[in-house]
């Protein structure tokens, strides 16, 4: 059989190819060929076939980075390669490149053995054939403007371009999945919560030919849609509640998370969404909303460690920000250019620091506590705060007028205390003072015992506090006014939401190119803000660029990367893998998408629509491609094991947050409130024992906060909540475009034993017993509908019916065990329910919550 070359870019790495064999053998499918026998494409494509080989094996010494370039040869540009006579177009036999890769002399062989890089026979054949065909280059696929393929009027572009590819590679699309699967898939992908059984029934029985389209519209209007869409963005910009380094202490950022949710719910255009994040504070129409958006620039890691050097961390923060722009918008790996020019892509060290210089204006402590941030509140509250601030300032001014006199009085008082050896009244034997007063006096006495000049700031304050409280009656009215104004202002200010935001300072930090990334080296050139030189960019000469220029460039029509990067990630949300499978690298070491026409079309459509993300979501989920079944045929597994061509849908495990959401929603415990401060679900005692400065205890939420969606969980970077961690939620210490989907024993332990899931099972059991009054079979059928929105199979009923009986008998014989189980979690249980029965059905609920199907989107 013939395997068309273009179908198998993924299989060129023979290790991956062998793994396909491993998968297929258990299914008994004969596999026709080994890797070396993969037929070569008759026409070699540079981007598809050659660039991956050159990039992986040659560019690190013969590429973009001059510092590491060997023999003055670069192979990433044709004219340079020909200049050095690397090959003779059309004549492989006369080409040095071919001679060197075929050499049997270890000193001659390329790549050299000590590089531990090795070309396969197939790689060598491709290079030979490519030279024979003229050795033409193509510009890197993602650095040129995307080209929009023509799509016939009335056709869905996704379907048209997927089908076109399928025809080329000889695959047929799959049939549409059943409606129950479809509505569950749609709810998971767009909302992250399961549909109600009634919604499933209504959709299954809807005769309207537009039923799917109507459903999509309805689900897109669901206010929880924004929460679902936010998950990926929060990962890619590394949103978290704590600073990350060392003490990993809290900071105020949750209003920014709510801004993200709101932006998705309001379908804020992606260009505006971008601009507000990078430069929302610099907009002419900057508002509270856009300023909160600019909190993006503050999401990086920071430290409060004593002994941390400001210049060291200034450097860390700059590099962190450059990596974030690269990851979130450009799909470029930039980190290596901190020390040297990128080896594979044309991104230079100069580009790196020029990009970093855009952020030199952001006011922030480099080392130490973050500030409270901007108050995020309604206009009336802000007005009230302004009024209280004004009153406080007035009181301070009034106090200022008398400050010198008070200080003089204090000096005199201290002198008297010292001269007469006064014991403060509270410390005299038999003094009638309360503990706090004694404490204050003790502190003051200890401080007074030291020379005034030798006192620490805290000691100075102790003396002054005591003096003002007890040592003088001067200006009591003014002092009372100040203290009252301060208290009133604080009482109002403290509970108001606050958010770290970007505040631009005229005093910009100096940014230098750091040789080898060394922050101690100040010999490098000072850099002004600048856009990467290898990408199309506007020429501005009459002024210095700022963050607003950067933001606008990211979402300009000239930028070839942003729309592709965002569409590639969006595709993964709906199909489980990107069109280019390396989400964070659209550069040379990434993957030329097998269906580049589709990714480019999506990128163009996205920009043409005015960066309308919801339009793109709708386009994808209304496609026939999206609605296919996810069960592979043998032919599909053989020809396209990783489903890169989308001749079917793919099943994949839910994100960590959604695993939790499914259980809480099914149990009826979910509190569906949107936004607000992060919450603390149950967590094993002592999990934070390795945190310090200060040591911390974890106070789990007691009320509604216990039952919120997973994305509101307190995101402690150094110790992320362990049940989220078990399901691959990232710690968000670095930007991550891709979450892995592991399948590990800890996941079983979480779903079986975490009190969150035990409590949810108990609550679901109570629902089963109270909302379904039939026999055990009827109750199992009801539970199946609630949890999985389908009828149980006879075999499934047969498996669980005996479990119900056994558990019931067991708990009837051991009521204390039932009581113990039912005490897990804070949610009350109805006292009138039979304890043994409730405990027995808790096991049924628990078994359902642990099913693979429960945590898998089909």
């Amino acid at each position, binding site marked *: 059989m013939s395997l068309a070359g273009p179908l198998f870019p993924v299989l060129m790495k023979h290790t991956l190819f062998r793994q396909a064999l491993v998968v297929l053998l258990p299914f008994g499918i004969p596999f026709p060929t080994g890797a070396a026998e993969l037929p070569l494409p008759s026409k070699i494509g540079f981007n598809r076939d050659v660039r991956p080989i050159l990039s992986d094996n040659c560019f690190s010494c013969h590429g973009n980075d001059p510092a590491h370039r060997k023999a003055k040869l670069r192979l990433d540009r044709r004219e340079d390669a020909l200049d050095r006579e690397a090959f003779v177009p059309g004549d492989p036999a006369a080409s040095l490149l071919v001679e060197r890769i075929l050499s049997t002399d270890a000193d001659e062989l390329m790549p050299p053995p000590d590089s531990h890089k090795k070309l396969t026979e197939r790689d060598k054949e491709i290079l030979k054939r490519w030279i024979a065909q003229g050795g033409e280059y193509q510009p890197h696929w993602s650095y040129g403007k995307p080209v929009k393929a023509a799509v016939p009027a009335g056709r869905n572009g996704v379907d048209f371009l997927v089908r076109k590819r399928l025809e080329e590679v000889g695959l047929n699309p799959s049939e549409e999945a059943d409606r129950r699967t479809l509505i569950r898939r749609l709810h998971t992908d767009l909302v992250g919560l399961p549909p109600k059984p009634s919604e499933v029934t209504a959709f299954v029985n809807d005769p309207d030919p537009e039923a799917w389209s109507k459903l999509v519209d309805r689900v897109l209007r669901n206010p929880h849609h924004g929460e679902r869409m936010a998950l990926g963005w929060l990962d890619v910009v590394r949103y978290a509640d704590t600073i990350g380094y060392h003490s990993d202490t809290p900071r105020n950022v949750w209003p920014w998370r709510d801004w993200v949710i709101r932006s998705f719910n309001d379908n804020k255009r992606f260009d505006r969404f971008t601009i507000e994040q990078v430069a929302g504070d610099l907009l002419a129409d900057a508002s509270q909303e856009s300023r909160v958006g600019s909190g993006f620039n503050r999401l990086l890691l920071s430290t409060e460690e004593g002994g941390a050097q400001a210049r060291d961390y200034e450097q860390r923060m700059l590099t962190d920000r450059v990596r974030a722009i690269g990851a979130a918008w450009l799909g470029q790996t930039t980190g290596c250019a901190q020390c040297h020019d990128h080896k594979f892509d044309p991104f230079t060290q100069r580009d790196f620091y020029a990009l970093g210089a855009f952020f030199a204006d952001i006011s922030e402590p480099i080392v130490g506590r973050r500030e409270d941030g901007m108050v995020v509140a309604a206009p009336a509250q802000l007005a009230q705060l302004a009024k209280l601030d004004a009153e406080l300032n007035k009181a301070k001014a009034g106090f200022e007028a008398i400050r010198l006199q008070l200080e003089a009085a204090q000096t005199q008082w201290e002198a008297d205390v010292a001269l007469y050896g006064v014991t403060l009244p509270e410390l005299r034997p038999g003094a009638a003072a309360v503990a706090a007063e004694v404490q204050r006096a003790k502190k003051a006495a200890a401080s007074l015992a030291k020379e005034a000049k030798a006192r620490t700031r805290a000691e100075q304050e102790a003396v002054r506090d005591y003096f003002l409280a007890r040592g003088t009656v001067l200006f009591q009215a003014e002092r009372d006014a100040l203290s009252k104004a301060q208290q009133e202002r604080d009482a109002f200010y403290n509970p108001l939401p606050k958010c770290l935001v970007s505040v631009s300072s005229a005093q910009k930090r100096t940014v230098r190119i750091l040789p080898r990334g060394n922050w101690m080296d100040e010999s490098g050139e000072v850099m002004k803000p600048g856009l990467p030189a290898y990408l199309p960019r506007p020429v501005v000469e009459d002024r210095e660029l700022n963050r607003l220029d950067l933001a606008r460039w990211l979402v300009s029509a000239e930028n070839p990367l942003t729309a592709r990067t965002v569409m590639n990630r969006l595709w993964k949300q709906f199909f489980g893998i990107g069109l280019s499978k390396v989400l964070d690298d659209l550069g040379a070491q990434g993957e030329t998408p097998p269906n580049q026409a589709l990714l480019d079309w999506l990128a163009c459509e996205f920009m043409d629509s005015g960066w309308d993300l919801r339009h793109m979501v709708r386009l994808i989920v209304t496609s026939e491609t999206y609605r296919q079944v996810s069960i592979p045929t043998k032919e599909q597994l053989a020809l396209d094991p990783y489903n890169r061509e989308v001749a079917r849908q793919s099943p994949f495990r839910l994100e960590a947050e959604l695993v939790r959401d499914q259980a809480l929603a099914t149990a009826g415990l979910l509190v569906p409130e949107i936004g607000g401060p992060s919450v603390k679900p149950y967590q094993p005692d002592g999990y934070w024992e390795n945190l310090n400065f200060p040591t911390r205890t974890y106070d789990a939420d007691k009320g509604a906060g216990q039952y919120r969606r997973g994305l509101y969980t307190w995101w402690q970077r150094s110790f992320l909540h362990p049940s989220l961690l078990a399901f691959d939620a990232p710690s968000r210490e670095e930007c991550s475009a891709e979450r892995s989907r592991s399948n590990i024993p800890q996941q079983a332990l979480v779903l079986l034993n975490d009190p969150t899931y035990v409590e949810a099972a108990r609550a679901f059991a109570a629902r089963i017993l109270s909302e379904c009054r039939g026999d055990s079979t009827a109750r199992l059928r009801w539970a199946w509908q609630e949890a999985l929105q389908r009828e149980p199979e006879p075999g499934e009923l047969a*498996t669980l019916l005996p479990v119900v009986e056994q558990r019931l008998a067991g708990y009837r014989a051991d009521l204390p065990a039932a009581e113990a189980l039912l005490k897990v979690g804070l949610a009350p249980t109805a006292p009138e329910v039979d304890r043994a029965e409730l405990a027995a059905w808790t096991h049924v609920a628990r078994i359902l919550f642990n099913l693979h199907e429960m945590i898998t989107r089909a």
Partner: protein
Amino acid sequence: MHSGFTHFHRRAFLARSTQGLGAAALSSLLNPRHTVAAPLDGVLSALPLPQKARRVIWLSMAGGPSHLETFDPKPKLAEMDGKPMPESLTKGQQLAQLQGRPLTCFGPQHPFTKFGQSQIEICSLFPHLGSVIDDICLIRSMTTDAINHDPAHMFMNTGSQIAGRPSMGAWITYGLGTESENLPGFVVLTSLGKGGQNQPIAARQWSSGFLPSKYQGVQLRAKGDPVLYLTNPPGVKREVQGGDVSAINALNRQREAALADPEIATRIAQYEMAFQMQASIPDLMDVSGEGAKTLELYGCQPGDGSFASNCLLARRLAERGTRFIQLYHKDWDHHGGVKEGIAMKALEIDRACMALITDLKQRGLFEDTLIVWAGEFGRTPMSQGNGRDHHNKAMSVWMAGAGLRGGMVHGATDDLGYAAVDKVTTVHDLHATMLHQLGVEHNAFSFKFQGLDARLTGVEGARVIREILI
């Protein structure tokens, strides 16, 4: 590629484990010694080098132990006590809290003694270590790149100061798999010191980074569940838990037939593994079967959460086939009171380290277990009050076991202990040497991440320290 390898392991695992799965019954689930799921295999099916070490026990002394009060005698520094530090040494150098302050020599706060046949001189506070010094290879010329705790730990564990890289334990289990049937391949234990300078340690220190999550370190805790969520809910007995797991697997198996999704078979295997861990881990943690002599050797009480107890657990893990065992002992951050601080630390670790070596030897495990003792950086010969600041130009580490020369000193610092000057070694060298002893060629052991062949030993080049190998 990233996701590709994830598939590889999962499916390789599946291909092997499916044979045993169909017949798995409650009886086998209930027997912790009976293995259904196969141990984890590594990607390196054939090792390029002879394997001297089959496992590693890494003793992380968190906070940065002073080499000047442990393993690096400096009589010259004692002579210079109180005098200004020669500027030629310190000019333009990276310092932490002492940056920009006057720099004064601070003599060693404890005497040193020669031990063993090799007559190696170490601080007198460590007589038990001294008694096994002929089994130890002491490196006095270690250096590191980082100077603050958090980045320095990251560098020591992952070879990079940027978060998101795999820890060495993850690299090693990824490469070699584990020999344990029902325990994690990479285990972490932590203990606190009594001095109160317990630096925070983030879970990223044992993260699998960009490697598949199953290679992440599993922390065994002294209090509460030894592994998070290990214990059944209250009122649920082991038989009942086993019954639920059987029912879950039976239901999953019925779907598997219809859906042809290989993830389901993996899920089934993982539930079996989880259920086994619920028995095997308490069994591991229960040291009541250890004789009084053993407890006395280590100097610990069962369940006291001490470093000594963790050393005993490390030996039990080594016996059971865990590949990488990492112990953190905190409280080495002696900015002040280095004299009293080190004396306290010595009491906490000296006997236990000796016991670990002795116990492994008497059980025949010493020859193929590599022990590494290291902080994240050293400390300044200059005073900071009566303590010492962080320092990355010099530190002492020691290694023992698996093919290492005993009773030898490698490298040296200058007369004042400021900088390594002879046979200077780096963290990358240390990693390369460890991998070498495990049978792994460090330059060829990589994983594609963000377009790079990422390695534990970094991109700047690392060297196996051959001089210390037998």
